[in-house]
């Protein structure tokens, strides 16, 4: 959820209890005011009636009682139970017009005129409280929806104008890659916070690019520098095995050294290859046919396939051709195929399915999907001694620079690696 949407949602949620509270207060104030007004009016009328009684103005009294708004009767009571002579109450009286009981405010008062006690009751229809309640309620709803609409509009407007530089910054950050050696230029903004954000991001990316380049340089230089001592070790081993009368024990030692040395050489070569791919070293591209590449790779691994009794099923719907570096394409296919052979069961299967924009390598193997971590450097299955743990990261890197997307699928003991043309590749 967008930040703005979230803030306005909070505003709305908080405004509901406030509105309810204000509605309640409103209700109380209105009813109190109305009641007081009625009481005053009724008291005045009562005084008028009392006056008539004192003057014994029968005509006026009759008129009043006939209006069905007052009642005068003799009573023996001198006062009400609570000791007062006047009391107010709400009472229901049948409204003839609407033929329903309506709330009326009534004053009851005991008046003593010439030793006679009279009870005067005067009433007046008042506000219908439930109607008032309804009115206030609907008012609240209207206010709430207005608030909602306004906040939506403000949201829209604010994100369109105020937050624009922020979204622009995010968009350029998404495109940023330290390997591109280019810092995105942020749009100028008059908002201080955004300006600061852009400024610190610029500084950070600057640092990232510098770090990335020095790390890249380091890997490349280190790999190169390591080559020479490795060459020395290798040549010395070649000379050492020429010695006559080597003991079995010595042979074992030499073999172990040789094994470690050749592993180091392979490791170094792979690292160098990775760095070169990352540095976009392989610039020459041409149209490469995956079918041809797969075929030559299959010839290369012929003996491995035979030894492991692996069945190769090739299914070519149409050739998948792509513009990329041919050497890298071979490395890519070799690595995937070697992977499929190495992690296969004896007597297993490898299916190679080539479609117009897609190539799939499926192989039988472990009954568990591989860890996606294996695409990272130096991650490998513990049971594979031969593997350097760089194969899949090389595959991933080559796919990335060649505009291919690499996906992995697992279903029922079948591991599939799918290479397909990256739809959103940027040309140029």
């Amino acid at each position, binding site marked *: 959820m967008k930040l703005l949407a979230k803030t306005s949602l909070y505003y709305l949620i908080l405004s509901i209890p406030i509105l309810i509270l204000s509605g309640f207060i409103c209700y109380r104030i209105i009813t109190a005011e109305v009641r007081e007004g009625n009481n005053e009016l009724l008291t005045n009328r009562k005084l008028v009636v009392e006056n008539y009684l004192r003057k014994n103005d029968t005509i006026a009294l009759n008129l009043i009682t006939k209006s069905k708004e007052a009642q005068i009767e003799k009573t023996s009571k001198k006062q009400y139970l609570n000791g007062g002579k006047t009391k107010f109450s709400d009472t229901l009286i049948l409204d003839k017009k609407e033929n329903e009981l309506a709330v009326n405010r009534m004053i009851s008062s005991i008046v003593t005129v010439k030793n006679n006690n009279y009870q005067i009751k005067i009433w007046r229809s008042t506000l219908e409280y439930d109607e008032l309640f309804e009115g206030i309620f609907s008012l609240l709803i209207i206010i709430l929806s207005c608030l909602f609409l306004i906040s939506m509009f403000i949201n829209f407007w604010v994100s369109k104008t105020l937050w624009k530089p922020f979204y622009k910054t995010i968009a350029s950050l998404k495109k940023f890659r330290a390997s591109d050696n280019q810092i995105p230029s942020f749009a100028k903004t008059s908002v201080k916070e955004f300006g600061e954000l852009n400024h610190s991001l610029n500084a950070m990316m600057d640092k990232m690019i510098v770090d990335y380049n020095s790390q890249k340089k380091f890997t490349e230089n280190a790999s190169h520098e390591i080559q020479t001592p490795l060459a020395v070790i290798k*040549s010395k081993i*070649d000379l050492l095995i*020429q010695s006559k009368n080597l003991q079995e024990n010595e042979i074992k030692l030499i073999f172990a050294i040789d094994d470690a040395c050749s592993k180091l*050489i*392979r490791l170094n070569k792979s690292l160098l290859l990775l760095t070169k791919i990352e540095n976009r070293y392989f610039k020459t591209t041409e149209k490469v046919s995956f079918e041809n590449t797969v075929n030559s790779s299959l010839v290369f691994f012929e003996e491995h396939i035979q030894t492991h009794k692996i069945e190769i099923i090739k299914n070519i719907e149409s050739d998948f051709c792509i513009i990329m570096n041919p050497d890298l394409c071979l490395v890519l296919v070799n690595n995937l195929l*070697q992977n499929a052979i190495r992690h296969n069961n004896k007597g297993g299967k490898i299916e190679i399915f080539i479609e117009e924009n897609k190539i799939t390598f499926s192989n039988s193997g472990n009954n568990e999907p591989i860890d996606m971590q294996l695409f990272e450097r130096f991650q490998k299955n513990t049971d594979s001694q031969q593997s350097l743990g760089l194969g899949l990261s090389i595959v991933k890197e080559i796919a990335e620079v060649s505009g291919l997307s690499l996906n992995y699928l697992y279903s029922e003991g079948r591991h599939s690696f799918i290479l397909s043309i990256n739809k959103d590749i940027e040309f140029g």
Partner: protein
Amino acid sequence: MKILLIEDEPELQKSIRQYLEMEGNVVEIASDYNDGESKIALYGYDCILVDITLPKGSGLDLIKKIKDKKSKAGVIIISAKNSLDDKVSGLDLGADDYLPKPFHLSELNSRIKALIRRKSFDGDIEITVNEIKILPDERRVLVHNKEVILTTKEYDLLLYFVANKNRVVSKGALAEHLWGDDSDRLDNFDFIYNHVKNLRKKLLERECEDYLQTIYGIGYNFKTQE
């Protein structure tokens, strides 16, 4: 054969020299660009091994000098840079082969031999080891003048053994020669075992002497002399 090695790493100089001199080659060494330049100008060689990154200059410029001199020497680039650019520009300048470091000495030796063979058009292009005769142009092998039918891998192995005869060749060197160093080592060792077994069987069938000695745990020695 007279070989010039232009290489700045002293230990590698020693190794290469020692290995190549076992066969009676004469190996001269130049440790930097200037040294190499003057040796190229003064003497003639059959083969020149050039490292690209040298003190005081680039091996690529030396190759240019060799070619300008119209020297007949075969040129092999031995470089730690292992970069395609250097390989391409080196070969464009007229180098005959490119061997990235680190390499097996036996591989270097077999490359030198192959190069010399290609260069000497006037001589006979047959390799004869006692009763074995190899015709590299036709990829044919004769034992006692009778043809032995070998697979590609067996043929490559035999040629490699003959180039490095009387030397111990490690399984690793053979594996790299046949498959490069990218594929599984242990698997490759099994294949080598099988190929060598078949090769030996085919040679023995033609009543060839058993030259192939297995050096336990290390590799093989194609031994033609005691």
